[in-house]
């Protein structure tokens, strides 16, 4: 998964409420209808990166079923980044659509 897409997905998943790593994976899978699955090897480095960039904050806490887990929260700058990144993504998708369907072929 391309980095910007992965970052966007993670930020979006955390927009509603703080989650631990496993929860982020579950949420993304659920939101995408099972299409997007984030592997372990991609998820945690991405979390590290976002944290380092100041977009996320992490803190240890206890999960629903009494397990110690690290919860990730969006920082204010994380929220701002989500807005701009989402806008950029949408522009991109729209642009791509125009290119792909410029010949007037019916959409699949």
């Amino acid at each position, binding site marked *: 998964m391309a980095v910007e897409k992965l970052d966007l997905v993670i930020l979006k998943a955390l927009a509603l409420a703080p989650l631990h790593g496993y929860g982020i994976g579950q949420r993304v899978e659920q939101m995408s209808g099972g299409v997007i699955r984030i592997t372990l*090897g991609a998820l*945690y*480095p991405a979390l590290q990166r976002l944290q380092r960039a100041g977009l996320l904050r992490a803190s240890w806490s206890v999960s629903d079923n009494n397990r110690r887990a690290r919860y990730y929260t969006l920082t204010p700058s994380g929220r701002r980044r989500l807005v701009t990144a989402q806008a950029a993504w949408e522009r991109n998708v729209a642009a791509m659509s125009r290119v792909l369907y410029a010949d007037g072929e019916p959409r699949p």
Partner: protein
Amino acid sequence: MGFWRRIVELVSGRRLDREAAEELAAHFEMLVEKKVAAGLDEREGRRQARIEVGSPGLAREEVARGRTGFVIEQAAREVGYAARVLRRSPGLTALSVTTMGVGIGASAVLFALVSAIVLRPLPYPDADRLVRIFDTNRQAGVDRSGVARGNLIDWREGAPAIEAIAGFYAMGRTFSTEVGVEVLITAQVTAEFFSLMNVQPALGRTFTDAEWRAARFSNAAAPIGPDPVVILSHAIWRQHFGGAQDAVGRTITLERRPFKVVGVMPDGFAMPDAGVALWIPWDLPADAPRDQHYLGAVARLKPGSGLEEAEAQVNRVAADLARAHPETNAGWGVRLSPLRTETVGDIGTMLWVLFGAVGLGLFVACANVALLSLMRSLDRTDETTVRMALGASFMRLLSASLLESALLAVMGGALGVAIAAAGVRALPALTAALPRLDEVVIDGRVLWFIVAVTAAAAVLSGLPHAWRRTRAAPAAGVVLGSRGATDSGRRHRLRDAIVVSQVATALVLLAGSALLTRSVLELRGTDSGYEPTGVLVAPVFLDSQTYRSGDESRAYYTRLFARLAAIPGVTAVGGATTVPTSPLGPDFERPVWPDGAAEGSSLRMPASVRMVTPGYFPALGVRVADGRAFDDSDTPDGARVIMVNETLALRLWPGRRAVGQRLVVDYSTAGTYPYDVVGVVGDTRFKGPRSDPQPEIFFPHAQRPYLILNVLVRSERDPRALMPVVRDALREVDSQKPAQGLYALEDLLGSTYARDRQAMVTLAVFAGTAIFLAVLGVYGALSQRVRERAREIGIRVAMGADTRRLVGWVAWAGLRLVGLGVVAGLVTSWLLAGTIEGLLFGVAATDAWAIAGSVLLVAIVGLVATLVPSWRATRIDPVVVLRRG
């Protein structure tokens, strides 16, 4: 990310890693819980979760990778791991390190030589503007000779491209102290010499203008001016004044005259050459002779002026002088050559060839280390496949493999530095006279070279192993300890290629060393025209203060010869102004022609002039081809007689007898007269076996006395054993006139090709080492093949295979390696033939004997290397092998 955060990460790396591990573990547990909740049992849930998650170690590492300091930690871990691997097989490691260390050390020494002698400029300021000047006369067939003192000032004034010119002349002078008497090489130098070289004295000063003007010389090059002064070389200052600061102002005794010391030159000032111990001033009067071509000359070009430009300007002056003074200057021009070229000479070719040879040797050494690593890695196939299965990346394995060889190379490089340092210190003892030898040091450039070579060695010796390793297929090896018939052809192709390249390189070195050996044998076997065995050479420099007349010097030599002839075992005693292979004495040429030859005739040619005593020809062992040799009847007031060598006789009187002819010699100040040719002697290769015989004329010393004679003593004894007696005889005749030194003529002759011998020995050592390493390679490759195929061989033996065919199978594999190596080596030798051509004498670079001999040696040694593995193959016990499988 802030700087502070980086620091925190750096120091708390372990905690961060632990947290990441905990987080991942939590993730894994949650996954398992979900699986269990979905109805799987605990075990199956774990299994599936593990498959889904992949390598936990890899994920941990991925997380950690982003952290500051991780790369360093990982590198440290890898180095530690590589060190452990190397420690596990100390024997192989020591062997690899030693092989590399010797290779790196030897190439560093050679590089230090090339760097100091060939690459670095001379140790004088703006040395690239210093040139030597030589006279040349195409009409007279003189390619290059010394210059005449009388022309220097005209050149200097007529050539704007030249800033300064100085002339010099070196000769032996007797230096007396309370402890003894010795003959030192002194250089008399004209004004501008020191300012032109632009080197400041270490102590005191150089000569003043007044001292230079006062420094007049007699015809016999004896300083006769008032209040003579001298400058000491650094070496003689250390030796005779113990490096005392107050040496300046003291006096020394030179030729029984007191000379005041005015200065001491710094260490490394070696002009005109490294043997000069003292400098004395030499005046440059306007009426100095224009036709006595015996001076050395050095000039400094103006900044921005080219050598060709200066040469053209001086030649224009020379042409003007030829018109103004046709009797002395007609036909004479000049040649300029960089001082560096003249100092270093043709040593460059030899050094580059040896440097190349050492490089090839180092290549073979690296190949051997590569083979050793490969063999080690084959024993570790399981480990590699396990690491790969655990998710180690391609780059990770590659870097791990290279790290092992890098560790080896770094240790080898350290050893190399030690070897190079010791080698450079030992150079003066090991090498024959090389120019600029005292400038050879381990400097920054050499150290950088060692670093570069070490890096190259690390890559060269590590790549095959690394390449092999990353190609290991995990699936094939994952069955731990399997002993299946996993004989992948690729693995052997790589190993075989290394062995073949080793054999090829060894053959190249061997062929080179065989060629040089043949060349040295040719040099040694060349008939020089005289018999050097049993001859002692004693260069004697009489001074004109004591020996004022010809009669006095004649009397000295008569007495000396009588004493020497009385020594038991001595068969002949004689002397000549110059003798073969000795650099001392006045060696000059004069124009000669048959009496009656027209002006401008092609029969006018220059001939080398030698004054000889009657004993000279028998003492040197030169054949008298026709007529008679000089004898006691050739007295000072007898008929003017002369002898010529066969080359001159043949050129002047082809098909006729030279004896009885009259030969005119233009002897400049001494006059031009005809002489009766009374005898013809055999040709000699005067400057060593490489030189061709030149036209020579001989005057009887009785008729043309000379103060300088190289005295020859032929005896039935070893000349070295005769030295003390000869020294005593010299002292008895004149206690203040020792010889400049005592030499065995054989040694002097040997020194003319000492470099060839040295190149031969060096190349032979490297060839020997290379062939040894190549044989080890062949042996190792075959042994391993037999070991790997033990099972197959066992089955064959069990099925009743013929041992002869088994041996044939192994031997064939070995011969194939050697054969391919020989072919590759022959092609390479052929390609490299041009580089060694310049070093050879009397043998072509493609000499069939040398090449065939080398091939034969490689073949025999290669065959021996196949014997042991072949024999071992026949000793394989099928029962043991099959049970183990």
